[in-house]
């Protein structure tokens, strides 16, 4: 398989950092939803969920209904952590469960949306996120169950790899986690809907044009009629 051609790096252009992407992604969580926050950047989302909104945040290690990450080590409770090992606030209504119950919840279709990191996403919404190139194996974690079974998958990812290759590609070159699962991509420069009829560019970070976003995206993007600025 030929290597994906490098795209322009646009090194002088603005980009959201991890916190910025998490902040934008948090807006996908609506009141009443059950939302799973995957390993990595998605774990930051719990700090940006509107504290007034009643949402059930789930983490695959077996906790649902928790609050923001606790920043003060003196208050941290190692018996109340998220899937990335960060201490999180205990909230009214939360519950703990065994691992098989946690994945009964996932596999059974009780999770409305999951946020996952990505190494590649294809035009069809195929996701690759478990095996970093060059590693002898990878970390499947709970991500595969989530990618296959959550009602909606939102990917949070930088738009390009560090060497400038696009991460949104026509076809995956990396090992697949789950086929046709991604519904939305929140990147450091854009928000894209993944639909059966194509990729729709919904939001673009100020400082970028839709054409420039296209230059760092391998599949063709349809510019949405209601294209908006990606603002936090």
């Amino acid at each position, binding site marked *: 398989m030929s290597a994906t051609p490098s795209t322009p790096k646009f090194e002088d252009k603005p980009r959201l950092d991890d916190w910025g992407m998490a902040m934008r992604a948090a807006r996908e969580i609506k009141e009443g939803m059950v939302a799973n926050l995957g390993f990595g950047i998605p774990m930051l989302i719990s700090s940006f969920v509107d504290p007034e909104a009643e949402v059930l945040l789930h983490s695959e290690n077996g906790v649902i209904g928790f609050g923001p990450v606790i920043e003060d080590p003196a208050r941290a409770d190692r018996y109340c952590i998220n899937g990335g090992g960060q201490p999180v606030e205990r909230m009214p209504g939360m519950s703990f469960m065994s*691992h098989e119950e946690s994945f009964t919840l996932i596999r059974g279709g009780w999770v409305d949306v999951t946020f996952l990191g990505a190494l590649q996403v294809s035009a069809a919404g195929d996701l690759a996120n478990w095996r970093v190139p060059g590693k002898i194996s*990878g970390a499947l974690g709970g991500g595969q169950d989530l990618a296959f079974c959550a009602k909606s998958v939102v990917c949070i990812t930088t738009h390009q790899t560090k060497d400038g290759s696009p991460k949104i590609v026509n076809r995956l070159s990396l090992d*697949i986690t789950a086929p046709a699962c991604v519904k939305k991509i929140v990147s450091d420069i854009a928000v894209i809907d993944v639909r059966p009829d194509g990729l729709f560019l919904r939001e673009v970070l100020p400082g970028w044009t839709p054409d420039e976003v296209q230059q760092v995206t391998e599949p063709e993007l349809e510019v949405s009629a209601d294209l908006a600025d990606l603002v936090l």
Partner: protein
Amino acid sequence: MAIDKVFATFDEAVADVEDGSLVHIGGFGGPAEYPSYLIAALARKDVKGLTITGNHSGFSEGQLSMMKQRMSGMMAYPDDYFSPGILVERGQVAKGILAFPVLPGAALKVPFEELLEKGEVELELIGQGSLAERIRAARAGVAAFYTPVGPGTVTQRDKEVRWFDGRPHLLERALKGDYSIIRAHKADRWGNLVYRGTARTFNATMAGGSRVTIAEVDELVELGDLDPECIVTPAPYVQRVVVRPKEPVSDWRTPC
């Protein structure tokens, strides 16, 4: 005769574990969930050729000390936090059935990754949900089940694929262990268990998933003190109970 599953020491509780055993190791990866003292006892026993299952393959002794330092800004790590990586590092593990055999990033190489690269350990990669359900199935006497997770990916291997409700499913077999080593919060002498917070995780899943389940617990209470409405693991799933020391034992080599 009265039922009493309590063992005095961790060494006695694992004394009959043989080379080549399949051991379900509870916990998830954090500092409060592993059956640390049972892992340490297996390391002292130096039993070999183990197949281990669990979420994470675990850190080496050196990496654990580093983690304790590095994570102290976020959360205090206890001195008696030992992970399955100690068994891997010591060459006691022949095979891992794991969701996190290697870490996602390039920064840190856990012992399992090093042995995998050298071809000295076998890996069966599996997602957490399918692993948990395979163990639950063993407890429940279900031989196998179809799951929608994994067709067309690394986890399919040679498993049967069958379509239900318009979706492909994989046939996953129950995974019964020889031993489950788990951590719980409170137990009575019958082996009823309750857990503490997110330390329930794979511990409650693995209880009863083996011929022998050994629970290491913070506290032993009188029979009748655990609220029957709140017991998570009922007594028949547990064969042995050992109480953790009040003061942490920070060196896994120390018999206890």
